[in-house]
């Protein structure tokens, strides 16, 4: 069994072969799915906890504070301590809440997260499912999270939650358009919806550089729209704490609240991953077409490092938004989408199609 940090394909195939050699095909598949599920579960929890920690440190950095610094070195285990506390807390279901929906809602949000993560290529060969319609799948799945948010707000039997959920519904449905359209712009450039092919297509230059100005516009629009889609500041109207206390998850406590909280951070991770994959080359190192020597040097840095670096850079940018801007109002939010981002996007698609048609891209 050969293991290389540069290419996980051989390693994965070796495990696959070993399982199929030793078990019946049915049990081999069951084992594989179990292993993948466990890996994702652990990675998900750790990543979520780390992002919460990162956000607290970043916001502390912006706000002249130290941030968590008591539990563990540099307060690294603070979020784990918080998580344990949340797990031990009582789950309160308030009177007259719709119990079934109230209990299902956090799980819907989490499941949607898992489904989206499955399609993301983390490194060469480190990829759970590789569809030929990968981008479409991710867009379709991530828009489902609005169902969980709406159910949470509706079933809580609280007016604050309901207002938050309604805002969230309007917001996610609107901004889904801009997200999809800016992704379509890039798909026109890439010529495929398969994530692995998109990443391979950037072997001689990332799409944001290859696609001229339309790619840059699509990137900016995507960042704005996706920040809005995942309900983060300055678009965090769904949970606007100064207005609605906590919005749609006001009435949740304990681990159910933690699910919403984690899913918010994992949504940020997914959004940043997709942006990194479509615009910044995913796990592809920084290549410049024709410069073989330079490209070879860049290849020495493992793809997983490139991927994590790009994703965390984008997460950092999204965090900067949140901690430096005031919040928009609901009508301004919808105006921004329908009057500015959507027309810009539509024109942008046309320009991109024209550029690709004429073969003007690099």
């Amino acid at each position, binding site marked *: 069994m050969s293991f290389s940090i540069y290419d996980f394909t051989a390693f994965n195939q070796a495990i696959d072969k070993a399982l199929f050699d030793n078990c019946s095909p049915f049990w081999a598949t069951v084992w594989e799915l179990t292993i993948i599920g466990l890996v994702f579960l652990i990675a998900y929890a750790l990543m979520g906890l780390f992002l919460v920690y990162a956000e607290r440190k970043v916001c502390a950095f912006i706000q002249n504070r130290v941030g968590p610094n008591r539990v563990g070195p540099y307060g690294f285990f603070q979020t784990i301590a918080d998580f344990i506390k949340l797990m031990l807390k009582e789950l309160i279901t308030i009177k007259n809440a719709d119990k079934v929906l109230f209990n299902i809602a956090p799980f819907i949000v989490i499941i949607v997260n898992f489904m989206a993560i499955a399609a993301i290529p983390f490194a060469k060969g480190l990829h759970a499912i590789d569809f030929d319609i990968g981008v479409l799948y991710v867009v379709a799945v991530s828009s489902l999270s609005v169902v969980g948010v709406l159910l949470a707000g509706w079933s809580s039997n609280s007016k604050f939650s309901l207002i938050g959920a309604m805002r969230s519904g309007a917001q996610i449905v609107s901004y889904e358009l801009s997200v999809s359209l800016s992704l379509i712009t890039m798909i026109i450039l890439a010529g495929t919806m398969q994530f692995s092919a998109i990443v391979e297509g950037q072997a001689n230059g990332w799409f944001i550089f290859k696609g001229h100005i339309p790619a840059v516009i699509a990137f900016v629009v995507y960042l704005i729209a996706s920040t809005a889609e995942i309900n983060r500041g300055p678009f965090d109207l769904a949970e606007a704490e100064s207005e609605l206390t906590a919005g749609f998850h006001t009435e949740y406590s304990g681990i159910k609240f933690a699910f919403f909280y984690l899913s918010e951070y994992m949504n940020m991770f997914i959004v940043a991953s997709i942006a990194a994959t479509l615009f910044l080359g995913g796990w592809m190192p920084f290549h410049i077409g024709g410069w073989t020597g330079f490209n070879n040097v860049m290849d020495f840095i493992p793809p997983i490092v490139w991927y994590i670096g790009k994703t965390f850079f984008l997460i950092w940018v999204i965090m900067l938004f949140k901690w430096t801007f*005031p919040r928009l109002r609901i009508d301004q939010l919808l105006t921004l989408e329908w009057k500015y981002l959507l027309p810009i996007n539509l024109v942008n698609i046309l320009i991109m199609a024209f550029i690709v048609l004429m073969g003007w891209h690099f």
Partner: protein
Amino acid sequence: MKEVINPPAVNIEEGEYHINMGPQHPSTHGVLRLVLSLQGETVKSLQPHCGYIHRGIEKMCEKDTYPQIIHLTDRMDYLSAHINNHAVCLLVENALEVDVPERVKYIRTILDELTRIASHQLWWCSFGMDMGGQTCYFYGLRDREKILDIFEESFGSRLLHSYYTPGGLMMDIHPNFQKRTKDFIKYFRKKIKDYDYILTGNIIMQERTKGIGYISKEDVISYGVTGPTGRGSGFSCDVRKHHPYAAYDKVDFREVLETAGDTFARYMVRMHEMRESMKIIEQLIDNIPAGDFTAKMKAVIKLPAGEYYQRVEAARGEYGVYVVSDGNKSPYRMKFRSPNFSNLSALDHMSRGYKIADLIAIGGSLDYVIPDIDR
């Protein structure tokens, strides 16, 4: 037991619903309860319910001597404690016709203005927070801390000072006071630019405040709204200008007036007022005359029988103290005219027809302190 049924405050129309904002809510700045009547996100009307932190200060004052009353005024508008103390001190001094030393007047003016800056800083923090920009909170608190440190070194307390006594001050200022105050002014002149960078110049903030929460000059006067809120609508109501007390007649400063009457105008009034306060302090800090820090007062202060009223310009508006004395060492009746109470009464008028998010911004621009409303 008979069941108590509260009649609905207004007739509920189709599609209208009520929501209780507070008494536990992050943006009511304390235990204020607003009963909102909403249609979708639009505020149809609202009813403030006060009294959650009512302590009966006015009644307590009837048993206390005048020096004791000063300690109670701290607990009303705790963010402008010095100014509240000042009102009671001035009232007693004017009633007894005491000649207060010039030194006291200068120091009181400087401390009042420092308090005003500190109060406006905290308002800026919480206004930013209400708008969703949480970083503002820490910027403002960082700078406010410097003022509180000066207070702490000078007379030992940071929030509830009770430093003024009838006739003067409790003790003389600390030798470092002048130097540290000058250092602070130098520091804050630089830092107030940060405030403009992070909030005033922000396009989202301007979009959310311009034209929101309009109140006309006539309405401001009829509601009795004073202070920066009133001056945002062009109502010239600065007590420091119109009825100068302490050393305000000796300094050159501008009464900040804006005419737009919206949330942004109220915001800008306060931002300019911080700069004007720094100007006042700069004019006085080097010229504090030598002399006693208190006038000679009797051990037991008794006001001659009669009615007295004294007003000062607190950080949020006109703060008045009304005393009916029967010649005893404690007042027969005491009434405080707190600026926040009148300002809050205009909230319903200001926020009708705007969204919930606007209501929060308007409330932030009123800068209410609940213990001052409830007393």
